[in-house]
């Protein structure tokens, strides 16, 4: 059990536990805060995968923007301060069954794949992942077109969200 394995086990335990709390919390603000914990766990997983840039972007974008947006939305769409209604709908057992079946299906499907137990190649020292990522994002024979389309998508989402939520008094 190397240190990395121990860290991975602890972090994944925390992540999955927080995810469970997200989907079963009665109080939606608590659910949003558990989501923050889950996102933080995922950021640590990215660090374990030597994707440091993605880890920091995860914290900035997901925790710093999306989670706060969730908290604002929860606060703006509640009728009273206490949540008395049940948090799960009538057919929640069907959802649970489907979730278990999905997990089992994915797991068994991957078991039969040969590369399932592959261990990682060593991370070459001096490998400038961020520089290469930057080049891939703006180089014409790499991914500049999806990058530009994503920015147009964000612009459309920005305009749409402002228009939808605008309260003309």
């Amino acid at each position, binding site marked *: 059990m190397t240190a990395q394995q121990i860290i991975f086990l602890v972090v994944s335990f925390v992540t999955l536990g927080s995810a469970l709390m997200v989907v079963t919390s009665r109080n939606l603000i608590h659910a949003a805060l558990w989501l923050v914990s889950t996102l933080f766990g995922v950021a640590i997983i990215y660090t374990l995968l030597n994707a*440091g840039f993605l880890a920091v972007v995860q914290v900035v974008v997901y925790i710093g923007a999306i989670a706060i947006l969730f*908290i*604002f939305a929860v606060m703006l769409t509640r009728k009273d301060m206490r949540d008395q209604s049940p948090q799960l709908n009538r057919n929640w057992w069907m959802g649970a069954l489907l979730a278990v079946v999905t997990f089992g299906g994915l797991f068994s499907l991957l078991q039969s794949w040969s590369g399932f137990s592959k261990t990682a190649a060593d991370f070459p020292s001096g490998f400038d992942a961020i520089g290469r990522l930057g080049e891939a994002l703006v180089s014409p024979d790499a991914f500049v077109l999806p990058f530009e389309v994503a920015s147009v998508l964000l612009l459309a989402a920005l305009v749409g969200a402002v228009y939808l939520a605008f309260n003309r008094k």
Partner: protein
Amino acid sequence: MNFWNDPLKIAADWLMGIFTSWGMPEIGAQALIAFLGIFLLIAILMVLDIFLVWIERKVVARFQDRIGPNRLGPYGLMQPFADIVKLLIKEDTTPAGADKVVYNIAPMLSMMSVLILWAIVPLAPVILGVDLNVGILFLIAAGSIGTLSIIMAGWSSNNKFAMVGAFRQVAVMISFEVPMLAMLLIPTVLSGSMGMNAIIQKQDIWFVALAPLGALIFLIAAIAELGRAPFDMAEGESELVSGYNIEYSGMKFGMFYAGELLHAFTFGGFWSILFFGGYRFFGLEKVSPFLAIAVILFKAMIGYWIIMWVKYTMLRIRIDHMLAFNWKFLTPLSFVLLMMTALLNALLRGGSTWLYISGMFLSNVLLAWSALEIARTYSRREREKAEGPKQALGVVAEVHH
């Protein structure tokens, strides 16, 4: 390689020798040494924080033409210790109906978001927590955690004023992250790296000479991020009954307050790292790391003094004016500045140094002047729409006679 040249490595090797001679496995010893280093840094920061309280109170007193605390100890130096004792012995209340867990975690998260920033601050070329190659983004990420802590504090207090204050503060913080991020990209463009140490190493010419407008906008955005005046809508004592920390008393309030001061000092430090050369001072840092630490602390103190100067001189801005200022003025200006800096940097860097410096400096001045002219025209137009043009008023007055 003696102690005065490379203190951290010498200390770490010595401790490693001791721990392995006790029979500890190497990886456990490494973890323990890392913890001891973190603990030492946090202890020093907390003591520094106490003196920041003293500095703050003395400086605000001088700005207000009075003396400040001078009863306890020489020049009132023991005053912050008395404050801490007072905060510690206060009753630890939790308001009725408050969300206990969230209420108690919020001040811890707020303090954590400040302390975590010191992991990437390079105190000397060889003394730094971790040389992250995405240090700039780490700065924003830690700010996000601070934002989260404020909204947790405001919501969990079960108090309308706290929630309104927290909403406003979080809106200001998220909004001002955009020009701050754009201005953080200017040292990245000028130095070719996002790591703090690399940015300092590349500052043969201080970046403030190459992008003075960038330094100014970064300072404005940083003051807004800190939640200090003139952007302290959340804690406007006269308006919101001190906003998100209404229901906090005792040490929890102390953590918010001390965390804010330390945050201001940290941003003074980052301002000096990004634009004023960090620990560099004409080669002084090569002499000894301790001189480098002294240099960077001195520059951080100057940055902190400027932030305090702004706080105690300027009036508070209204919340809608704050947000309009950000989205309608600062954000477009910062993006244009970023593009212009990147373009001019690529064009002029190869040429002569004097052309480079003067070209970038003049372009910044030109951009600032034209932005202010546009703002002036816009505000003149707004004023005319609101009051009517000057000639019509004179005609109306004559007619009424």
